[in-house]
């Protein structure tokens, strides 16, 4: 980088600062509530314990009484 380049940089820098002044700002509000919202969207959906209980009962019923499968297939 030579002296001529440095002068160019300074001149362009001056023009750019006139067109787009430097910014130095803090967020206008606390972003944590928005972050919490984003986190809850991204996490896998919470499955309540009773859904697990129903699913477990069904699996157990099919294992013990395989003919239940036909009944289930009929209703689904």
């Amino acid at each position: 980088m030579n002296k001529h380049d440095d002068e160019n940089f300074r001149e362009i820098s001056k023009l750019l600062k006139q067109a787009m002044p430097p910014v130095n700002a803090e967020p206008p509000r606390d972003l944590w509530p928005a972050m919490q919202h984003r986190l809850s969207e991204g996490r896998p959906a919470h499955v309540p314990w009773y859904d697990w209980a129903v699913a477990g009962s069904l699996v157990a019923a099919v294992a013990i009484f395989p003919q239940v499968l036909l009944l289930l297939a009929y209703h689904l």
Partner: protein
Amino acid sequence: MELLERFAQGDDDAFETLFRQFQGEVYGWILKIVREPAAAEELTIETFWKIYRARRRFRPGGNFGAWARRIGTNAALDHLRRRHPAEELPENIAAGDCADPAVERETREEIRRAFQRLPAKLSAAATLALIEERPYEEIADALGISAGAARLRVHRAVRILRRHLARLGREP
């Protein structure tokens, strides 16, 4: 246990503490690159979401601020690419009389437009170096390149802008 260690192990309270501690710094850095407060807010959230997902890869001995800034820079670059796809500068722009304030305003507007048309990589490096006057080492670290490469990007941006200014009749 140290805060960064707890964060790396997936502690949500540690993440919240780090978020509150660094949100201002990350937002300010992203704003310098994208220059739109609403987009900077959105990108700050996006950056911390990426940080949250990558927390197990973070080495507790590392510099959290620098890591966050690098992730934020990548998010800002993606935003610039989506917003301003690189395109040719318009030809035959009339030269203006720079003594006229209205023409000065027009020239500033042209410079701003020309700057926004720069490829994202060049515009980010040039904003940080020429407008915000950040040190090259800091810019290089955020962009994940060497200081020499950062300087080269600024040099290329200056060359493009000079060409554009020459078309406007301004020879810096």
